[in-house]
């Protein structure tokens, strides 16, 4: 039986999902949904599928097996829960949800309905990060890590939902959930967070931080720092991982990894791949096999990241004290 797919959210990321589902070829795109009728209609016409402006009606489509959620961040939780309750397999874009409680509701819904829930941390599928993950093992115990993600404002602040912390989750959730998830995936569970969050430039437009400093303490003992900015004049995205037997530096957008050792260093060019395609194909594999396949992020992964970011907010409010990420779910 060919799996039927519906995509909710016909913005850039929704279209990106549609293209990858079609390119995979194992599924059939049946419907799209967007509250903006013109957008929904245009997308439906382009791909020759049905369109909905009502999410409830969309979920009533008789042949939908998979729902892919690519809507503004604040909608993820309720839409995911509704889709799972309707018996759909759900691929939810990052961040999973704005609050830990929402994440818990999503995980519970997935358990109750026995339907898979995956969160779209697509960087896990990028060759440059997969190679880094095996390099960390080769180079022995990581001792220190620095992540910098600096750029000019990447968001369209004309969109209302991009301006409010209660709708986007702020810079550290909306953007840096990628880095938190990646650091968890590379370095393990995070035990405490210290943070300083500041609004330096866009204070008259947004109510969240545009610059952030996070210190992350990991269970295995190492401490990492994450610097984030949306007020820079160039884009810098780099990870430096100091391991016992070598230091790794990676530039994800250039698909480049450098390994420095005492007397040698090596720079490797990794694949210029399409991580979203790999993620969506892995999600389809997972649905077919009835279990989440590595390295797809689960609801528990998505929740852990939201919990770290919540702890960062709390820490920043307390002047940078260490805060343990936790929440209501089974803890």
């Amino acid at each position: 039986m060919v799996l039927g797919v519906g995509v909710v959210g016909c913005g850039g990321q929704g279209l990106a999902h549609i293209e990858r589902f079609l390119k995979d070829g194992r599924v059939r795109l049946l419907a799209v949904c967007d509250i903006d009728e013109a957008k929904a209609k245009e997308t439906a016409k382009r791909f020759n599928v049905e369109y909905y402006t009502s999410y409830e009606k969309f979920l009533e489509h008789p042949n939908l097996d998979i729902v892919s959620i690519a809507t503004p961040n604040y909608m993820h939780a309720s839409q995911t829960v509704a889709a799972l309750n309707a018996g759909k397999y759900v691929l939810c874009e990052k961040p999973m949800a704005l609050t830990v409680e929402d994440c818990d509701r999503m995980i519970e819904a997935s358990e109750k309905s026995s339907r898979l829930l995956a969160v779209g941390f697509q960087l896990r599928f990028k060759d440059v990060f997969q190679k880094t993950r095996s390099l960390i093992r080769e180079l022995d115990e990581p001792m220190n890590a620095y992540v910098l993600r600096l750029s000019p404002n990447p968001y369209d602040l004309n969109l209302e939902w991009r301006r409010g912390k209660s709708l986007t989750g702020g810079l550290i959730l909306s953007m840096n959930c990628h880095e938190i998830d990646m650091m968890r995936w590379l370095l393990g569970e995070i035990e405490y967070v210290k943070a300083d969050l500041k609004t330096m430039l866009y204070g008259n437009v947004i109510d969240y931080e545009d610059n952030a400093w996070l210190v992350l303490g990991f269970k295995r003992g190492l401490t990492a720092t994450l610097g984030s900015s949306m007020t820079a004049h160039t884009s810098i995205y780099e990870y430096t991982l100091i391991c016992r037997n070598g230091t790794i530096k990676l530039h994800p957008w250039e698909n480049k990894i450098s390994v420095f050792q005492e007397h040698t260093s090596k720079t490797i060019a990794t694949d210029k791949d399409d991580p979203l395609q790999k993620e969506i194909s892995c999600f389809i594999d997972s649905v077919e096999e009835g279990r989440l396949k590595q390295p797809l992020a689960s609801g528990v992964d998505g929740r852990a990241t939201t919990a770290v970011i919540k702890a960062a907010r709390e820490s920043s409010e307390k002047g940078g004290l260490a805060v343990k990420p936790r929440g209501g779910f089974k803890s």
Partner: protein
Amino acid sequence: MVNVGIIGCGGIMRGCHIPILAKMSNVKLIAFCDVEIDRAKESAQMYKANAYADYREMLLREKLDAVFIAVPPYAHGFEVEVVEKGVHVFVEKPVALDLNTARRVEKAIQRSGVVNSVGYMWRYLDTTDKALEVLMESGPVVLVEGHYVDPFWLPLGHWWLSKSKGGGQVVEQATHVFDLARFLTGDVERVYAEFDYSLIGKYAPGSDVEDCSITVLKFKSGAIGVITATCISRNTYNFTDLKILAEKTVLEHGGHRGFLRVYRHNSIEEHRPRVDPYALEDEIFIEAVKKGDTSKIRSTYSDAVKTLEITLAANESSRAHKPVEL
């Protein structure tokens, strides 16, 4: 124990060879010679040795196994007298300023059969070993590109600023790049050079050394190369290097910086030196003197004459505006 004498107590000797030799347990520094006797005395005092202003006197009075020679380029040639006494010689580059002198010394060395070595220290870097190893599997070398970009900060009247005393930048300095190119890609058959002198007078009034040069090389293997040098880059653009483009690999040797970068399909590797090439060239020379086995010496006198020949041909070509066949 190898009894060593020093001829020429200038910068390279005092900054480099003397402290290295002094640390070696199988070497005894027994005599120091410099035409400026005070320089010789200074070192002699430090190592409880004898000082001489005249090398002939030193050769006469001391029982020397080997001498280390670092004199200004114009002062070479007397090595004939040293080797005729059966004393082994380590000579700093360049070995002379003209081929007649160099060949005279070369013949004397051959007749005497003494151990001989010339201070082209880049040859002793482990990164140079790595370059040779990588070149074995890189296919033919097609293009060689080298640089010697360095400012001079010398007092007016210094021998380096006079072509008849120092030979100019190509003969005296860039010779390291020419030599490494030869070591890694073989001998040269044709040389064409353009030299420029337009700025040197501004920084060193009266100087006649080239301030910029480009030398095009045709190697016997078929490869072509170009070596660029300047001595007036008084800014942050200062470096030495030699790039070798082979069919499958590009090598970048960092010269004085010592590193070797290997560019392959989808990867760049950088190797940094684990050895001090100055110490290694001295140790290997002393070892060869002790054991009579010269197989580890990487730059013999005869080999260095070939490098000199290229740099002299570059000068000749720049004057004649014509390629010079070797």
